[in-house]
């Protein structure tokens, strides 16, 4: 009797205590039409991107995911802070969702902002399995806007993900159609002289590296909210309105440089966390990052949202207009980017005039001891060869060939501009540093951390309650968007307690970048490069957080076997 009374009282209290929402997602095989080609893909509730999930901070969400595929699937809630069993990584958080099975996710929403979700199985995400998450804050936003749109970018490729992986493993330059040609040689000769051009080619040929190696996977159609450039997704506005655009880069491999000719953009949020507003003309969005910007078009005209890929091999385009059907000019793409020797400066053996490439030394530091911050070969030599590049930007190697500039000569967003609106954690000294060298071999298409691929790697062990400083040393010639699941990445931009809080940090070639993590989430988590084919090739780790409230000690030996394809 007493128990029943208590239950009744509790059930009456529940609606007052918290919101609860239930959502249904089906994972389906679908057709994706980019306007350039139609391909088989994977979507949610019959489309890609899937439905926009709108949550409210404080809500207890229940999400039923039904797998209509003939293979295992999963959904990872990218950037959401939640119990690790809900994080959706097969083999790390849970066994995955088998064909025909309905899996129910259940977690409290403890944050606000723009995020996204995607499959963490195989190449389902490049094949289309992703969608947007928008979480309305409990309190007031620190900025005003009249309407908001999600602007979700992707790089839709005519080939299926597993085919792309196979082609890259077999022929690493399979998709690179921006390689230097005989024609480019002669135009360089006329600009820089014969000897300089020959010397340059010999230096690169000696390393067996390509200046054109900015984008591994070209030949895609850039899409915004499921529409290719010809299909032109359009967001309608009334002149004078403040529009919040929630940019999400759901690409498999592609960084985009985004601008809206004619409009200033005020960046107000990065990776779901509010930042101190900064006005920019253009910004680069890394794979898996999000940026929220506010624009205020005054005139009753159309504006083009133009997103060129970092290597200029493709673009996405959309329109903001007072009414459907209007459009503004679409600018031409700029010239393809070329790497410089500065971008190579992180490679071991590249630090003495680039002449000693006999072996890749130190390729097997499998231990994550972390306290070893002794100087690694090739570090911090970014300023040694600056003869080639003209641009210098923070977070890029000095003289880098891929440091961005705004098309209109104005302000290009830098990580250095990002300052947290409100620090999430008390600023404190890190308890230890862990060095992670980002390593790889383009000619074999192997990607690894500290020279060790995921298949051969031990987990990274963190202690609950510590604050770890991660030191990323990029020894490759590619940009890697590193994503730690479950815990925030406090990016060190030199702003102390105002350092921005992110879930994905881009580490540029030939550079060293630091982030700190408050280890406040027990369990085990994925930590990887978010370029789909780099992660699959081995640039991936499992992180185990030991200790913490109400958990048994993590054990990797006595564990259930979770098979299937991840």
């Amino acid at each position, binding site marked *: 009797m007493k128990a029943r009374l208590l239950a009744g009282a509790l059930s009456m209290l529940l609606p007052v205590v918290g919101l609860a929402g239930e959502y249904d997602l089906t994972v389906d095989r679908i057709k994706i039409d980019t306007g350039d080609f139609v391909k088989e893909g994977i979507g949610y509730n019959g489309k890609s991107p899937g439905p926009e999930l709108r949550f409210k901070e404080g809500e207890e969400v229940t999400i039923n995911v039904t797998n209509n595929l003939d293979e295992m699937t999963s959904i990872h809630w990218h950037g959401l802070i939640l119990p690790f069993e809900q994080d959706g990584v097969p083999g790390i958080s849970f066994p995955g969702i088998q064909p025909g099975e309905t899996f129910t996710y259940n977690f409290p929403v403890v944050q606000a902002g723009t995020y996204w979700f995607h499959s963490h199985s195989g190449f389902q995400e490049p094949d289309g399995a992703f969608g947007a998450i928008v979480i309305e804050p409990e309190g007031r936003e620190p900025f005003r806007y009249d309407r908001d749109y999600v602007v979700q970018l992707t790089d839709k490729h005519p080939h299926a993900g597993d085919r792309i992986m196979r082609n890259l493993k077999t022929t690493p330059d399979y998709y690179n159609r921006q390689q230097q*040609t*005989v024609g480019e040689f002669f135009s360089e000769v006329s600009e820089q002289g014969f000897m300089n051009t020959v010397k340059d080619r010999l230096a690169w040929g000696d390393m067996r590296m390509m200046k054109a190696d900015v984008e591994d996977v070209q030949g895609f159609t850039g899409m915004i909210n499921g529409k290719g450039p010809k299909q032109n997704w359009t967001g309608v506005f009334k002149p004078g309105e403040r529009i919040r655009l929630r940019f999400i880069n759901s690409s498999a491999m592609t960084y985009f440089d985004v601008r809206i000719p004619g409009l200033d953009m005020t960046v107000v949020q990065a990776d779901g966390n509010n930042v101190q507003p900064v006005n920019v003309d253009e910004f680069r969005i890394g794979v898996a990052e999000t940026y929220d910007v506010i624009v205020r078009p005054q005139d009753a005209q159309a504006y083009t949202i133009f997103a060129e890929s970092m290597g200029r091999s493709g673009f996405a385009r959309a329109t903001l207009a007072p009414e459907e059907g209007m459009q503004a000019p679409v600018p031409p793409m700029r010239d393809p980017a070329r790497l410089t020797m500065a971008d190579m400066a992180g490679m071991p053996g590249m630090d003495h005039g680039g002449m000693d490439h006999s072996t890749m030394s130190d390729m097997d530091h499998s231990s994550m001891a972390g306290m070893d911050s002794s100087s690694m070969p090739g570090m911090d030599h970014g300023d040694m060869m600056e003869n080639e590049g003209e641009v210098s930007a923070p977070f890029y190697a000095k003289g880098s060939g891929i440091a961005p500039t705004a098309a209109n000569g104005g302000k290009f967003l830098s990580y250095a501009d990002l300052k947290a609106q409100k620090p999430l954690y008390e600023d404190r000294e890190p308890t230890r540093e862990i060095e992670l060298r980002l390593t790889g071999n383009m000619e074999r298409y192997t990607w690894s951390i500290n020279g060790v691929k995921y298949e051969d790697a031990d987990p990274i062990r963190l202690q609950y309650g510590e604050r770890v400083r991660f030191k990323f040393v990029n020894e490759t010639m590619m940009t890697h968007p590193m994503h730690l699941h479950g815990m925030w990445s406090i990016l060190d931009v030199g702003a102390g307690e105002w350092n921005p809080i992110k879930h994905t940090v881009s580490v540029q070639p030939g550079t060293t970048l630091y982030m700190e993590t408050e280890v406040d989430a027990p369990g085990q988590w994925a930590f990887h490069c978010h370029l789909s084919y780099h992660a699959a090739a081995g640039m991936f780790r499992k992180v185990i957080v030991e200790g913490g409230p109400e958990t048994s000690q993590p054990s990797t030996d006595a564990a259930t076997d*979770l098979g299937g394809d991840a």
Partner: protein
Amino acid sequence: MSRIKSLVAAGLLGSVFIPAVVSAQEMPSDTTDRKKPLAIGGAQFEEFEYRYSDDDEELAVWNADIFYGTDDLKVRWLSKGEYAIEEQAYEGLENQLVGQVPISKFFDAKAGVRFDTPEGPDRTYAVLGIAGLAPQWFEVDTNLYVNKQGDTSAELDAEYELLLTNYWILSANLDATVAFSEDREIGIGKGLVSTETGLRLSYDLIDRSVSPYVGVVHERKYGDTADFAEADGGGTEDWFAVIGAKLSF
């Protein structure tokens, strides 16, 4: 007494098994494909062509590589054939089955067997080779062959691709064979045996899967090998016009 025993046993069992079960439920170990080496397979025809020689000989020629394996170990079936269309006979037919492992950043070692089964006597060799990418983008493939009689020979294959554009590619290759002992029966003399030099202009028609090409190929025999060929009534030098396609699946 027996009751105490069983209690103790239960207690022991519990203390051993329960924590294991709990952690098993909470901390999965990753046995997904992501944690396993990625195995890749494919078939590539570097040459798949028709050759027409300066003395009206017609040949069908292929040079194929069918492979399967991981970063650490690949198995390759390397097949080369020269089929004389008029004579309906294989001038050359060579199949290798090799295992391949990486030995440095850019080079792999190969070991296996080679079976030569052309028109005429057959040969079986053990193969030891090194293949990879040399500085300045030269693809090189060197092999050492030894047969049961102890006849040894070496072969060097080098290729360079010049990008006229990103789709029009001019590739040059040189294949040279040196024998360290004579094998008269199959017309091999000691010393430099033969070279094959080719120049092919290709166009990537469908991705890098189908790339039709035209080109010229020059074959020459040297030293004792040339003398043997002449004694057997054959030529020592041939020029071919070739048309074909590079294929990759």
